[in-house]
């Protein structure tokens, strides 16, 4: 871990709504430079919503989100545009533009934000594809790649501008254990070699425990705990233990009661 305890991301009292429904109820979270923070939680816990707001894809009801010292709820569009050049995101399904080849996808941020010539952009894209073990695949279209390859190509596109902040949304979802382990290694390498601050939203426990410096557990729009892997594992919080041990939090339900619930009797 290369954590130097200076905050790269700071969320203060974040409250968000979806229509009339409050989703996040006052989130406070600090993520240090160079650390891998895992955001975990069950379905509907608010982890994907939190990620959307960290990415500046929504306007919160209240609270502030500081990325690299800038409050993205207050900065101008121009400042946000500049800040985005320091952010990389690997979406759950890759989100590669289907009308472009892999190489063109990886070149896209360079094309938009730099004045590099075609040849240099091609070389840079090829280098980043080699980082994710996709060297030689730049001419293929996204539809011609497997799920794991698409995710790796999405990582190549996300890191092509050498961002300081990197976000992953469910990187292991839908992948076999070997490919998933390769992606975990890649995330660790990005932190160690490129000194990135990395936020990973996931519910894959094995992957989370392997790569996390710290873990934040979300439940029903609240943070239950933010701590190291060991402390999370040893937590006596019932909801956290339910999540870690993959068991429902409710007491055991007898067969008769269950049938009654189903039939409404």
């Amino acid at each position, binding site marked *: 871990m290369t954590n130097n305890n200076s905050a790269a991301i700071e969320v203060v009292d974040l409250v968000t709504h979806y229509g009339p429904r409050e989703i996040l109820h006052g989130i406070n979270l600090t993520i240090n430079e160079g650390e891998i923070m895992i955001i975990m939680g069950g379905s509907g816990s608010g982890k994907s919503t939190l990620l959307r707001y960290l990415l500046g894809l929504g306007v919160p009801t209240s609270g502030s989100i500081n990325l690299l010292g800038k409050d993205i709820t207050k900065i101008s569009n121009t400042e*946000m545009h500049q800040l*985005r050049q320091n952010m990389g995101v690997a*979406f759950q399904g890759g*989100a590669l533009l*289907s009308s472009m080849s892999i190489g063109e996808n990886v070149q*896209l*941020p360079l094309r938009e*934000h730099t004045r590099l010539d075609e040849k240099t952009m091609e070389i840079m894209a090829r280098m980043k594809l080699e980082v994710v073990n996709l060297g030689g695949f730049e001419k293929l279209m996204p539809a011609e790649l497997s799920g794991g390859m698409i995710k790796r190509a999405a990582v190549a596109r996300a890191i092509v501008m050498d961002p300081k902040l990197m976000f992953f949304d469910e990187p292991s979802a839908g992948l076999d254990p070997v490919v998933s382990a390769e992606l975990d290694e890649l995330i660790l390498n990005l932190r160690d070699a490129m000194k990135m601050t990395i936020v990973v939203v996931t519910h894959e426990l094995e992957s989370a425990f392997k790569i996390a410096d710290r873990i934040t557990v979300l439940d029903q729009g609240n943070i239950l705990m933010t701590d190291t892997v060991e402390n999370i594992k040893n937590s006596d919080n019932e909801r956290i233990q339910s999540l870690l041990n993959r068991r429902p939090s409710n007491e055991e339900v007898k067969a008769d009661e269950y049938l009654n619930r189903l039939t409404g009797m």
Partner: protein
Amino acid sequence: MPETATHPLTNSLELLGRSTVKLIEEAGYYSALLAESLFWILVGPFIKRPVRIPSIFSQMMTMGIAACPIVFVLSFSIGVMLAIQMIYNLKTFGAESQVVVGVALSVTREFGPLITGILIAGRTGSSLAAKIGTMQVNQEIDALRVMGINPVRYLVAPSLFAMMIMLPVLTFFSDMAALLGGAVYTSIEIGLSFDAYADRTLSALAVVDVMQGIFKSLIFALIITLVGVSNGFSVTGGAEGVGKATTRSVVLSISYIVIADMIFTYFLNL
């Protein structure tokens, strides 16, 4: 708890109110999309974020050049159909030779822009809605945003620019194809030569007749693009949502085109 009685009139009023609010919301969204697109087209180059020229040319090819064969076939058929109807009706007064004036004015002022508009709404409007809708479902729009690429600049502005150029061009092409259709049928039916047909058409038409159709096509271009992209951006619910948005886009575009045509025809002929 006593049940709340709902009067049918109350329900109808509520429905009318909701529909009106939705219509105003949509009109506002179209206006915002148009304003933002124009901003990127006009101001983008000065803030070093221009609309990409290759993207505009690519859209012009897809929307315009690729549509030429089908526009020709339909417009030619419309020209033949108009000539058939007009010769049949004019025969009653023994004035078949006046078919040239009728076809020329009907085509340039009304049928050319209308048929082209409806055809492009079905062909390109639906394609825009489906493309942007699929990108929305696959988080490609979110990916553009987080890469610092404004989706309106990247997707909407080039489409709008290309459509505003290509629909008038296609309309003019459609006028020519329909006039050709009229000429072919007229020469067969009443033996009028192509030269004579062309001469009479040129003397019957004023520049304003052609420009009226071209002006309408600019309005139709706005309608097709804005309805298509706004339906694409509002897609939710996966592949089914994309299908619904595509259908809605075509139905709305064609409806708005026909209504706009009626309004403009009235005001342009006062």
